[in-house]
């Protein structure tokens, strides 16, 4: 993930794409236009994704795998095609290494239960970072408790970057896993994954990457990264909720025992025993989220048309603009590194104004942001604030929308800080 590469792609024009998102034209009950800056929480769907869902249900839908009738075969082909689209997006070596899950959280839990329970022994160590989302934290706490392992933490600097020197001190021959986010959902920090993975591998540890805020926003190549696992969610990349992806290296996935048991993940079942099926089915028990996967495929097609590199470059412009607007406001503190080192996420706190009140008053201006700890309680404790307000962008936001933030925040400050 080269930050420098952003400058050399053709400029993205958001107006070209906005018309595909009817919801962005909404006028809110109080007459204001919607400004949707909550993309880190979830993204909106283009009509092409909605159409894929409707068309599947209206023309092709049937249960997948082992069906012989026409609709089953059509659904099967659409489902398999979706898997191949995701494979190509992340440059996985084979589609069998792309496991469909219900989201990034579900994918991480799969690794914690399957790889974790089979591999970890008492005294083993898991390395996390202070900036992790609870979904890339709690499953490891649960695993550590089950297996008698210890969790250790890579700290962040006051600028919101990972302290890589600390990584070297923490890596030991007891380290089995490093779990790290590609992009922080609060700080926006883009972590130096290649370097982290190289050092972890040198110490004999594997690396799981939480790609939830990265895969939708920039090109990700799992072979170039050499990550052992990658998890991400459909609904953060124009796809529906209820679908996510776990990518894993083949030798790892093949050596891991199944997680959920049931139909679909077996080769053979007798009364006394079962044998698990091959990849990817071994990890896809039960009827899968068929239409959600097909819709995710449509989302990947759409993102490829927009261009992930173009999205990444464009978001830098939005982030720059947001930093400029916000830095001029008195008593406002932005968390995280400078725009060049982050994705399209800007979290901030205002003196004497609580994040909830800020978010409420921005909503009055039609601006949708999020307030709270954003599922990163340890990070907020480290930052020393109970809550932050977060604006998070996507390629369909405009510079003109970002310009609305400054005046709206000034009005909020005027309302709440009258003394």
């Amino acid at each position, binding site marked *: 993930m080269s930050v420098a590469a952003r400058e050399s792609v053709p400029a993205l024009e958001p107006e070209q794409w906005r018309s595909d998102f009817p919801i962005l034209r909404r006028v809110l009950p*109080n007459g204001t236009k919607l400004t949707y800056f909550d993309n880190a929480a979830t993204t909106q769907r283009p009509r092409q994704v909605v159409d894929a869902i409707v068309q599947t249900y209206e023309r092709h839908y049937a249960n997948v795998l082992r069906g012989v009738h026409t609709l089953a075969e059509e659904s099967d082909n659409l489902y398999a095609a979706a898997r191949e689209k995701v494979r190509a997006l992340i440059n996985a070596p084979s589609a069998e290494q792309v496991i469909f899950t219900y989201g990034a959280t579900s994918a991480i839990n799969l690794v914690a239960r399957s790889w974790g329970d089979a591999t970890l022994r008492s005294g083993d160590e898991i390395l996390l970072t202070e900036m992790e989302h609870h979904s890339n934290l709690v499953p490891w706490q649960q695993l550590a408790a089950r297996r008698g392992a210890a969790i250790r933490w890579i700290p962040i600097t006051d600028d919101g970057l990972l302290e890589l020197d600390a990584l070297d001190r923490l890596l030991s021959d007891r380290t089995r896993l490093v779990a790290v986010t590609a992009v922080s959902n609060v700080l926006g920090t883009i972590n130096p994954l290649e370097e982290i993975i190289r050092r972890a591998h040198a110490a004999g540890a594997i690396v799981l990457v939480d790609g939830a805020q990265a895969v939708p926003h920039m090109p990700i190549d799992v072979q170039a990264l050499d990550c052992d696992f990658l998890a991400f969610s459909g609904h953060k990349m124009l796809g529906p909720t209820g679908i996510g992806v776990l990518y894993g290296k083949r030798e790892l996935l093949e050596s891991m025992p199944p997680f959920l048991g049931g139909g679909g993940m077996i080769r053979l079942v007798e009364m006394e025993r079962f044998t698990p099926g091959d990849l990817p089915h071994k990890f896809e028990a039960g009827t899968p989220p068929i239409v959600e996967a097909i819709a995710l495929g449509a989302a990947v097609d759409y993102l490829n048309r927009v261009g992930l590199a173009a999205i990444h470059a464009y978001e830098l412009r939005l982030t720059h603009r947001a930093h400029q607007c916000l830095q001029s406001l008195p008593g406002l503190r932005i968390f995280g590194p400078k725009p060049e080192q982050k994705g399209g996420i800007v979290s901030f706190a205002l003196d004497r104004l*609580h*994040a*909830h*009140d800020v978010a*409420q*008053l921005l909503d*009055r201006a039609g601006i949708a942001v999020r*307030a*709270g*700890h954003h599922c990163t*309680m340890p990070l*907020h404790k480290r930052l020393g604030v*109970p*809550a932050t307000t977060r604006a998070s962008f996507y390629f369909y936001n405009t510079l003109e929308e970002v310009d609305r933030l400054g005046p709206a925040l000034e*009005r909020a400050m*005027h*309302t*709440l800080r*009258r*003394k």
Partner: protein
Amino acid sequence: MSTGEEELYLEHVLAHYEEPYHRGRCAHCTHVHEDLNPLCGDRIRMELQIDDKGTIKEIWFEGDGCCISQAAASMLVERFDGNHIDEVKKFTAADMLAMFGARLTPNRQKCALLSWRVLQAAIYSPADGQSQPAPQQCTEQNSQAAQPPTGSGPTLSGSC
């Protein structure tokens, strides 16, 4: 400023936020409780001095958090200063929201109700070093859910 913005941040809400009633510590405090909304970081602590007839002689609050939570605490403290704890027990969550006045979405209602929950627990929570039971006439009337744990440390209490 449009009327739409002021709907939530009504004049009396902002007045309580800026100049809260009895924000501070209670000298000779007999009862205390503290709680927070972990999702948003609002925190309220209530310290009371209740006499042996059940009258709230002193009531003070401390805390941090959003305008709604802090303003609601101030309103509540002003409302019950000098009242009997039976009045507190009869004061429902709906009463609290009505007293607050501004229209609140369910998410923000949690902010306004935090101090109400803390007060409902505080009247049953003797301060450290004092183990007086609640006055007789009050315990008979307690037909609400199980009493929260006593003690002055912060606890996550369920709804009262």
